């Protein structure tokens, strides 16, 4: 690996009693976009402000091209600062200057360019960010999204070699968000600046990032390429990537998977001690991934949601259900035999058949046949979860079906 452009070495920072960073190590390479992701309020902005010297670390070092920031002479430091731009989270536009003057300010104050040249450069950015109509207005007179674009224009107008973005897309509509990310990526390819971006927009930021760092619990538990991120087994990383699934499970009322696994283990130990038996049921939507691919993301999620809510509605208070795969839900019935599991299966079968989602005429554009399958087993002796799931899959029968019968392009 080449020498990092910026390196955090065991950086710690506290505000009063509140420790925000604790021995943070982070590497940022030249010519790459590094995204820092993390929950709100975990110190992402604090990290960014250390790079530009707005905050100083309590302990540890920040190295720029291998040289500690604290050893920079004044001219060196100014030169470094001039080569970078900082886009603030709340934009930090000068509210007594117009949009035009805001964007022009770094050029007017720092360079000796003639007025016409400055105007040309600023007008180019104004045009690029579609700010023509508001260029004579004041920041408080324009919308939040426009303010964001003004801040971005101001950051780019000096053509810096490094840009620090503090949530550049927060508060933008999806189209503009894409436009901004696109602009950052495009400009990065063109000029090759080094970018550090703090963001919440997962997974969008992964597309334009060369490296990703996750900040959690005052430390950086992961940093690497987006591909490494996706392949990581780390639980925190998993939560960040699968944020949407976690949300869905919560929305549908499903129990968290670790909790059900824990319960399963407890029950197994009771089974081993010959105290009791319990039953499990596995529900599967066949071809959910195909639906996602061809019909659409929302349709696939609605179908899953329908199944999850149907199951959850039929369960009693001490019975649990959790997502085990993209279209699979496992239910555990701790104090009941196979009859109870079958009762739930037949209940779901009746409930699902009348749903809007099972009506082929609703799929006007693309339609794919899919089926709801279920199977149940009574656990009488200790068995590991994977084997049990395999057995359940073999045991499954179709309980509800959606057939297109040629209503649309059948795939």
């Amino acid at each position, binding site marked *: 690996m080449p020498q990092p452009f910026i390196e955090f070495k065991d950086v710690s920072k506290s505000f009063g009693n509140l420790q925000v960073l604790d021995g943070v190590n982070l590497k940022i390479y030249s010519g790459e976009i590094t995204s820092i992701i993390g929950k709100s309020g975990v110190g992402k902005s604090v990290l960014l402000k250390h790079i*530009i010297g*707005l905050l100083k670390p309590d302990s540890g070092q920040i190295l720029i091209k291998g040289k500690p920031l604290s050893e920079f002479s004044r001219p060196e430091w100014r030169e470094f*600062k001039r080569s970078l731009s900082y886009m*603030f989270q709340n934009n*930090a*536009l000068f*509210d007594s200057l117009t949009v035009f003057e805001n964007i022009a*300010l*770094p050029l007017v*104050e720092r360079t000796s360019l003639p007025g016409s040249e400055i105007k040309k450069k600023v007008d180019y950015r104004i045009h690029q960010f579609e700010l023509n109509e508001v260029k004579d207005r004041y920041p408080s007179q324009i919308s939040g999204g426009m303010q964001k674009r003004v801040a971005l224009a101001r950051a780019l107008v000096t053509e810096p070699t490094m840009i620090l973005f503090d949530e550049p897309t927060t508060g933008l509509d999806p189209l503009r968000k894409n436009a901004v990310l696109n602009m950052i990526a495009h400009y990065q390819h063109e000029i090759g600046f080094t970018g550090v971006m703090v963001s919440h927009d997962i997974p969008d930021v992964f597309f334009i990032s060369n490296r990703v760092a996750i900040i959690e619990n005052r430390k950086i538990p992961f940093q690497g390429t987006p591909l490494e991120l996706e392949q990581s087994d780390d639980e925190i990383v998993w939560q960040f990537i699968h944020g949407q699934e976690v949300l869905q499970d919560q929305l549908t009322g499903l129990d968290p998977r670790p909790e059900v696994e824990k319960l399963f283990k407890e029950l197994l130990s009771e089974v081993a001690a010959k105290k009791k038996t319990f039953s499990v049921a596995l529900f599967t939507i066949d071809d959910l991934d195909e639906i996602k691919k061809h019909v659409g993301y929302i349709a696939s999620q609605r179908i899953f949601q329908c199944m999850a809510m149907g199951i959850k509605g039929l369960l009693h208070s001490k019975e649990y259900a959790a997502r085990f795969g993209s279209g699979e839900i496992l239910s555990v019935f701790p104090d009941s035999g196979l009859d109870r599991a079958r009762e739930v299966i037949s209940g779901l079968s009746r409930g699902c058949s009348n749903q809007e989602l099972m009506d082929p005429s609703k799929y006007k554009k693309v339609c794919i046949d899919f089926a709801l399958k279920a199977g149940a087993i009574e656990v009488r002796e200790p068995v590991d979860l994977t084997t049990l799931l395999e057995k359940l899959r073999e045991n499954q029968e179709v309980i509800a079906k959606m057939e297109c019968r040629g209503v649309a392009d059948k795939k």
Partner: protein
Amino acid sequence: MNQETATGGGNLIGLINLLGKTTLNIIGELGAVAIFFFHGFLLIFSLPFQFRKVVQQVYFIGVKSFLIISLIGLFTGMVLGLQGYYTLVKFGSEGMLGAAVALSLIRELGPVLTALMIIGRAGSSIAAEIGIMRISEQIDALDTMDINPMRFLVSPRIAASVITFPLLTALFDVIGIIGGYLTGVLLLGVNSGIFFNRIYDSVVAKDINGGFIKSLVFALVVSTICCYQGYFTHMRPGGFGAKGVSLATTSAVVISCVLVLVLDYVLTSFLL
């Protein structure tokens, strides 16, 4: 540690502790203001000169205070004429009215009242404006752009104050004398020739210089205090955001007013 001794060592030690701490705080604060002032003041002379910004501030602090200073000057002069006449007439020396009005205006009331009026009108808004820039990270933004915030925000305001305070004081004096003329001569019938002759006889260059020096000192003190309070809004204990700005504005006005009156006494005793 200090608190432990305070509670353990009885009230007297606690009191001494408190006194020591307060004194150290005040001295520390004075030092910080002094550094702030020299930093801001020296940057006035850094190249390239910020001519445009100074002119803008002269307009804001000076030109926009024109009317209010004239109005206050006029009424101060008129009431001086009125009071002065009724006091002087008891001794039969109402002819001295012109001198009384002119000297009290030029030596004392002109510089002091002008400074107080500018504090109320421009000082408070300087503190509020810089304070808001601080809490909305605009000052940090300047810093990240490698634009010196002290040079950008503080220096033009100090320079503009140095230019406008003496001019506004002069305006106040002249309008005040006209006010005295209105009540003394036109209303109460003092002879106009005597009124102006007495002014001519009694006012000497030393008086005018004294008033000028006072207004210069007030300009430096007021502009520094108001900028300082706004600039360090975020360091203020117990006040964040809008509350912090309101506290900064209040202390800018209160501290400036108190300092103007205290310094007026000190300067007078040196100049007399």
